[in-house]
């Protein structure tokens, strides 16, 4: 455990982060492109249509991975928030600023594609179902974090406020996950919710494979976006510091 923390602390140094992030960025970018090409072929052409939902089942391959990534992105924000608030790692604060819009984009993708899937399946674009409503709350949380991070003249204060909101919002994650079990919802329960279910999933392999390939592509895209945007935040911060130093000196 100590070794894990030691590695995280090592990466919290911006110079070391850049050194590790550069090769990782290219590797994940190339992997993302390959997985997207393969995943789209499987999702749109190779996978079978559902006997009941017909072609509309193909929406699952963009909708479900977006939902997974929106939750994963939020979990990573919460961990970064802890790191920022406890150990004062500036890189963790910059990560929150960088990744909140990425999480919001995945959540919006999930909600919009779900709505488009809902109309032919349920006959309604939107229902105030527990799963849909808790996902909408997640989108609002992301919006709140983005707004708070920019709400103060002092960037540190903004990052601190955004970190606190990230931590408070963690309560929404189990609500999203278990909403389909706790309440009577129109949204179906999870088909792949645990490792035991991965071994014996409710989905046939012809549908499970494209779903997992697309999830891999989304994950690689998330890593690429997280690295590029954190680097952007680092450069903006450095430019601001240089400007302040320049105005103080002269």
């Amino acid at each position, binding site marked *: 455990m100590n070794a894990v923390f030691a590695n995280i602390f090592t990466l919290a140094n911006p110079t070391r982060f850049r050194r590790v992030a550069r090769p990782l960025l290219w590797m994940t970018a190339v992997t993302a492109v390959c997985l997207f090409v393969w995943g789209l072929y499987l999702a749109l052409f190779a996978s079978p249509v559902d006997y009941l939902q017909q*072609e509309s089942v193909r*929406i699952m391959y963009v909708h479900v991975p977006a939902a997974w990534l929106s939750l994963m992105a939020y979990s990573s924000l919460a961990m970064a928030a802890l790191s920022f608030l406890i150990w004062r790692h500036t890189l963790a604060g910059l990560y929150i600023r960088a990744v909140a819009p990425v999480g919001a*984009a995945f959540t919006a993708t999930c909600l*919009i594609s779900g709505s488009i*899937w809902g109309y032919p399946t349920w006959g309604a674009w939107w229902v105030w179902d527990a799963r849909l409503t808790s996902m909408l709350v997640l989108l609002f949380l992301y919006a709140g974090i983005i707004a708070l991070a920019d709400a103060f003249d002092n960037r540190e204060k903004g990052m601190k406020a955004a970190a606190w909101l990230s931590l408070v919002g963690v309560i929404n994650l189990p609500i999203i996950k278990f909403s389909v079990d706790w309440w009577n919802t129109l949204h179906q329960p999870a088909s792949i919710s645990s490792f035991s279910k991965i071994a014996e999933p409710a989905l046939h392999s012809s549908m499970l494979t494209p779903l997992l390939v697309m999830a891999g592509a989304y994950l690689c895209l998330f890593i690429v976006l997280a690295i*590029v945007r954190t680097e952007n935040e680092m*450069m903006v911060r*450095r430019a601001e510091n240089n400007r302040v130093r320049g105005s103080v000196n002269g």
Partner: protein
Amino acid sequence: MGEGGDYIAFVWAAYVTAFAILGGLTVSSVFKNRKLKKQEKE
């Protein structure tokens, strides 16, 4: 439920929307990265 072909428009709408959102964010982030790097060098 209608014929399978009825739903193809919904499938394309979902895919185009998903890739517009995620692709847009990716392109804007990469362009900003290039611009900031250029500014740093100057």
